């Protein structure tokens, strides 16, 4: 295969994943207004390049820890769209049997450790997963996603220090979308340069344009290589933007339509599609076919969720404790 063919396949895979996240979430929002999905629903739309770019650099043995805005990470990691949708429906066929919902997606098969809805709460877990790998002599990476809001939490600083002190194989990925819920970073960070905070802990770090999937992937690849070679953890700040409200209950009083419109001009999907078109790797026909394929996947996920069943109430107290003894 020529390198152009490889590049084309890879780029189309990136486009496919980003489009799947976009359409899956648009459908989720629609289903939310219909009452099919309840609870909190946080959409990733606008930030797709971050999850897709980073996931491409991980292997199946690596681990992922994410936040409550994690549909994108779960899909890009290869979790079943049907199992995710069924989870949001609250069906027993969901990835967590309907126990977690949108904010708590987990999957042993892809080593996806949530879905953590305590801001910053996933960072110590990532350090611990990486510690287990190091103590057991496994050359794995734990990729930990968190937002700019988490940077103000003690868990961020404690985990950065621990990971660097013990040279743990953690890729810290800060998805800096400029707002901790509805409060702009200028109101929450004394020093808003997040990547620079790595130096406080002697940790290698960089920032990257989080709207450009190629840039994210290249930066993440460099970071993962650094970690796998035993150089210790890495902090990667991805500067991105959430196109939709924080959750479904957000009147967006804290930012202007003009600001949102400006960022939408750098839509990560259009950015990649445009690049592929200019390179002659994508045309209208291919784009239409891709849209149709993604629409089919989303439709299948919804059908799977619709056909799902409710867990028996008698099962309510299952999984408070393990049903097996540890080995």
């Amino acid at each position, binding site marked *: 295969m020529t390198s152009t063919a490889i590049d084309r396949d890879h780029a189309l895979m990136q486009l496919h994943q980003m489009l799947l996240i976009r359409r899956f979430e648009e459908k989720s929002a629609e289903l939310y207004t219909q009452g099919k999905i309840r609870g909190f629903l946080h959409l990733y739309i606008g930030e797709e390049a971050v999850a897709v770019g980073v996931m491409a650099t991980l292997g199946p043995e690596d681990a992922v820890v994410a936040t409550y805005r994690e549909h994108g990470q779960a899909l890009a990691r290869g979790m079943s769209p049907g199992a995710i949708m069924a989870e949001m429906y609250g069906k027993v066929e969901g990835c967590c049997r309907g126990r977690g919902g949108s904010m708590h997606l987990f999957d042993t098969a892809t080593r996806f450790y949530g879905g953590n809805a305590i801001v910053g709460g996933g960072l110590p877990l990532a350090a611990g997963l990486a510690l287990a790998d190091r103590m057991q002599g496994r050359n794995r990476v734990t990729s930990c996603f968190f937002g700019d809001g988490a940077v103000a939490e003690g868990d961020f600083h404690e985990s950065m220090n*621990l990971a660097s002190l013990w040279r743990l194989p953690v890729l810290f990925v800060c998805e800096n979308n400029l707002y901790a819920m509805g409060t702009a970073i200028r109101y929450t960070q004394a020093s808003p340069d997040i990547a620079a905070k790595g130096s406080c802990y002697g940790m290698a770090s960089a920032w990257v344009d989080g709207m450009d999937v190629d840039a994210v992937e290249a930066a993440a690849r460099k970071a993962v290589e650094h970690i796998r070679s035993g150089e210790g953890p890495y902090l990667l700040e991805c500067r991105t933007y959430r196109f939709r409200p924080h959750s479904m209950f957000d009147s967006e009083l804290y930012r202007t339509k003009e600001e949102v419109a400006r960022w939408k001009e750098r839509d990560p999907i259009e950015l990649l599609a445009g690049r592929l078109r200019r390179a002659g790797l994508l045309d209208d026909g291919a784009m239409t076919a891709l849209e149709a394929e993604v629409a089919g996947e989303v439709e299948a996920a919804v059908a799977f969720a619709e056909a799902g069943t409710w867990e028996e109430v008698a099962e309510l107290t299952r999984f408070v*404790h393990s049903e097996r003894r*540890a080995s």
Partner: protein
Amino acid sequence: MNQQSAMRTITYREAVREAIREALQRDERVFLMGEDVGHYGGCYAVSKGLLAEFGPERIRDTPLSESGFVGAGIGAALGGMRPIVEVMTVNFSLLALDQILNNGATLLHMSGGQFNVPLVIRMATGAGKQLAAQHAHSLEGWYAHIPGIRVLSPATVEDARGMLWSALEDPDPVLIFENNTLYNMEGTLAADAGPVDIDTARVRRPGGDLTLITYSASLFKSLEAAEVLAGEGIEVEVIDLRSLRPLDDATYLASVARTHRVLIVDEGWRSGSLSAEISARIMEQGFYDLDQPVQRLCTAEVPIPYAHHMEAAALPQAATIAEAVRRMMTHG
């Protein structure tokens, strides 16, 4: 009777240290992590000598980051290790409460049964050493409120020695509370003492007149009171809960059915407490066995004071326990 030669005297501290050492020898996945557990030898000298024996990977000094290292313990447990995380005192554990409750106790259920957390967290608890109001509280009852974890309270050297391995074999988080006044206590232990069950309460002294339910350091104050009362013709049955979650209802209800009187002695505060929970369970399940209302003797509802006499006055003591029993027997 056990043969004299098969028994030995050991302190509570040594019993815990032996248990940790044995666990490290038995299972490569086990490691100890916490503040000052390595080079310092443990705040209460529990882990003294273990760093030299097992090295810094497995006797792991942590920064002062309770949330960070307890959360890392949870992560390491998810990753296949069997961590023993030591938190210096129960008051400091509040800095890690988020990780203990929102992750440790919750991940299994929230993930639909996919991710269990085989983690043991040990911490010192309790008053009596003039450590004042930020080092001496008894918050075990708070933790016993949380579904998804076990809460253990070893009082004897046998339990201090034997509960750890059973806890490490449990697939879910187990919290072990070690009352700091017990570390220097000596007790006798069978030479071949091994793991003990972590499910049941024990009758530590039989008696037919009144059931005294307690745990941890208050056990010994209660036994002292029971000895004095026996001289007065009052036979108190003293029950050591051992496990605060789950509670072994059957053992104390069976005792109540025999004695018809209950005093609960709890070093925690009274309001919204473990003693309240036990009292409620007795009302629900043993009401018709009672000859008089369940009584409670708890720590005064104040932050633990520094001054020795004030601290002593705040806690249940052998004398106040005996007095509470006498009052009940007089008015029963």
